[in-house]
């Protein structure tokens, strides 16, 4: 096994990889920017090296520096986590050139699957379903014929397009000719190019993805699907496995297709094949992520497979320790991304200092967090603070457990999306499982703080103000309390009966 690996990342995923390495008996080296000097990943690693200024392109994205740290510290592997250099084929190559394993797929696999156009081409040859549509520009004469073949509703999109210009949603055949004319004219005006293509419009789409794992002997397995339809700003917030919208038949088909695609590029390590799925379970390839995914824990919870440990093992050359038929699903898992952002203000990030944090505990609860009292939320990096994951015997129990866990979660200092998540777990549409990527848009009331909660907060503040004493003093010593008259009295009045 590796002797020592460098984790080229920060935050919770760096902590996650360090934990996996420790459990495999591998020494760990952390790298950090000036902004992350006092952070959990630095604290948990065996060694830590500063690699530059806070901005990612002056630290976490500077591959050369990272490789040179790895060489100095005598690492035999680099785990890139997600984001940053994780899907950078050049970096993967540079690692290998320097005789350090890149713990992930081959540079070739990254290159092939990382490009939207090549990956579509490969998908096509592997007979992976793609959103039906014209590959390129359509002639006016053929347009209606093609449109009928694709089926309605459909989208007309400007080939040179972007930002919604030259784009038309067509609900039925009768609207088509007129919409085509308008789209082309708009495209002409906007881009000086009236070329358009046609694609099926997926109504109420769900985001479904399949986790795959491959080894260097060519074995590839899938670990079933994840549903990631609850999104804001086109980014996932809540994920679950299995998907409440995927039947056993579709699950099997999707899994097989994902494995076939991964095999096409001799995929090794952990990867994810993303699909868009309509409410009738028709699904189409979107892209492949050639790295460990933020939401990998929910798959770990339902399969009992440690994806990060497996990544490291197969990268070192171990064969996958299981075959497809050995992989069993059990129960249901949900992940909530706890973020420093204001749901009631367009999910705007909320930088600042976390004064106090208390994580949920108890059965079936896992918190992959990099938080601590005094943690600084900066604008340099993603505002995700922690991933709260629960497992339970079925979806209803998992939702109730998540609700319970969220109710124990305390983050004082900056506004977070915890309140929104609490309300989401109580929402009957969420509970019904009929999800699509527009869910949050359609449930805006979940973004608002209920009046009764504001009242409780106000009442507590009122008592604070009445006490007339700054709480700051109390933090020094929990036994010292100028509020004694309240605390002491409580033993008398707090519903006391005897």
């Amino acid at each position, binding site marked *: 096994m590796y002797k020592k690996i460098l984790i080229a990342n920060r935050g919770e995923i760096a902590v996650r990889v360090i934990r996996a390495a420790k459990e495999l008996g591998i020494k760990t080296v952390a790298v950090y920017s000036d902004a992350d000097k006092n952070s959990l990943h630095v604290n948990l690693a065996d060694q830590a090296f500063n690699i530059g200024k806070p901005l990612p392109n002056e630290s976490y994205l500077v591959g050369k520096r990272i490789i040179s740290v790895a060489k100095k510290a005598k690492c035999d592997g680099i785990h890139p986590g997600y984001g940053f250099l994780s899907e950078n084929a050049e970096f993967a190559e540079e690692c290998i050139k320097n005789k350090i394993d890149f713990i992930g797929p081959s540079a070739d696999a990254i290159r092939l699957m990382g490009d939207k156009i090549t990956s579509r081409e490969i998908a096509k040859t592997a007979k992976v379903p793609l959103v039906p549509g014209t590959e390129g520009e359509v002639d006016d004469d053929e347009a209606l014929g093609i449109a009928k073949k694709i089926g309605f509703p459909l989208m007309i999109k400007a080939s040179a397009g972007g930002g919604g210009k030259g784009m038309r949603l067509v609900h039925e055949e009768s609207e088509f000719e007129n919409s085509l004319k308008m789209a082309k004219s708009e495209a002409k005006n906007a881009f000086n190019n009236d070329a358009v293509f046609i694609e099926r419009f997926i109504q109420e789409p769900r985001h479904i993805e399949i986790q795959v794992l491959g080894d260097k002997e060519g074995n590839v397995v899938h670990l079933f699907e994840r549903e990631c339809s609850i999104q804001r700003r086109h980014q996932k917030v809540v994920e679950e496995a299995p998907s409440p919208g995927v039947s056993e038949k579709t699950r099997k088909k999707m899994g097989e297709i994902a494995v076939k695609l991964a095999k096409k590029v001799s995929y090794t390590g952990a990867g994810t094949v993303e699909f868009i799925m309509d409410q009738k379970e028709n699904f189409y390839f979107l892209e492949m992520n050639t790295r460990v995914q933020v939401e990998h824990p929910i798959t770990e919870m339902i399969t009992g497979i440690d994806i990060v440990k497996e990544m490291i093992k197969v990268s070192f050359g171990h064969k996958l320790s299981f075959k497809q038929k050995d992989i069993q699903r059990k129960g249901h898992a949900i992940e909530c991304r706890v973020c420093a952002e204001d749901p009631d*203000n*367009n*999910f*705007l*990030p*909320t*930088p600042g200092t976390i*004064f*106090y944090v*208390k994580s949920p505990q108890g059965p079936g609860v896992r918190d992959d967090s990099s938080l601590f009292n005094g943690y600084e939320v900066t*604008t340099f990096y*993603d*505002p995700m603070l922690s991933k709260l994951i629960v497992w339970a015997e079925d979806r209803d129990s998992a939702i109730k457990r998540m609700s319970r866990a*969220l*109710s*124990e*979660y*305390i*983050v*004082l*200092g*900056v*506004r*977070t*999306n*915890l*309140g*929104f*998540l*609490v*309300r989401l777990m109580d929402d009957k549409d969420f509970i019904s499982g009929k999800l699509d990527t527009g869910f949050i848009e359609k449930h805006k009331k979940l973004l608002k*703080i209920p009046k009764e*909660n*504001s*009242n*409780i*907060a*106000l*009442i*507590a*503040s*009122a*008592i*604070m*103000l*009445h006490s007339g004493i700054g*709480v*700051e003093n*109390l*933090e020094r010593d*929990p036994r010292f*309390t100028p*509020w004694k008259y*309240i*605390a002491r*009295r*409580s033993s008398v*009045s*707090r*519903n006391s009966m005897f």
Partner: protein
Amino acid sequence: MKYSLKINKKIIPFELTDKDNNLEVIIDEKKYSVELVRIDSNLYSLICDGSTYTIAIQKQGKEISLFFKGDLFTYEIPSQRDKGGSENTSGIDKISAPMPGRVVKLLKSVGDIVTEGDGVVVVEAMKMESELKTTIDGKITEISVKEGDTLDLGAHILTVESQDKK
């Protein structure tokens, strides 16, 4: 005793009575029998009309921050000048950059009349665009930036002044 707290420039008055070991808070003419028990350094158990609520509290200077059921509430202790009694809105809302970023679009011009909650400017930070809103009714009296400007944390963007104060 009478007190008041300020949130989003609104002053909320309340009364607190502390008799015979019973603490009562009166807000909006509703009476709550309350008690606060300290658990942890910042963690409290609020008992309100017999039910228990977990609340985390931080007081910093004139601000009280509370965490309850996943949401953060920040109250200001009003200065003597603020204390008018019933709800009123202060005259000026100076909108500044909540984080370093860039001005994407100004939605209003100097002289425009705005209502509480109106979006006035779109800024970009952390690769995301966000709309900043005014928290009072009034008129735009000053704009210190133009579209495309880079913003430091706290940089002044624009000012809204309420009309009735003029």
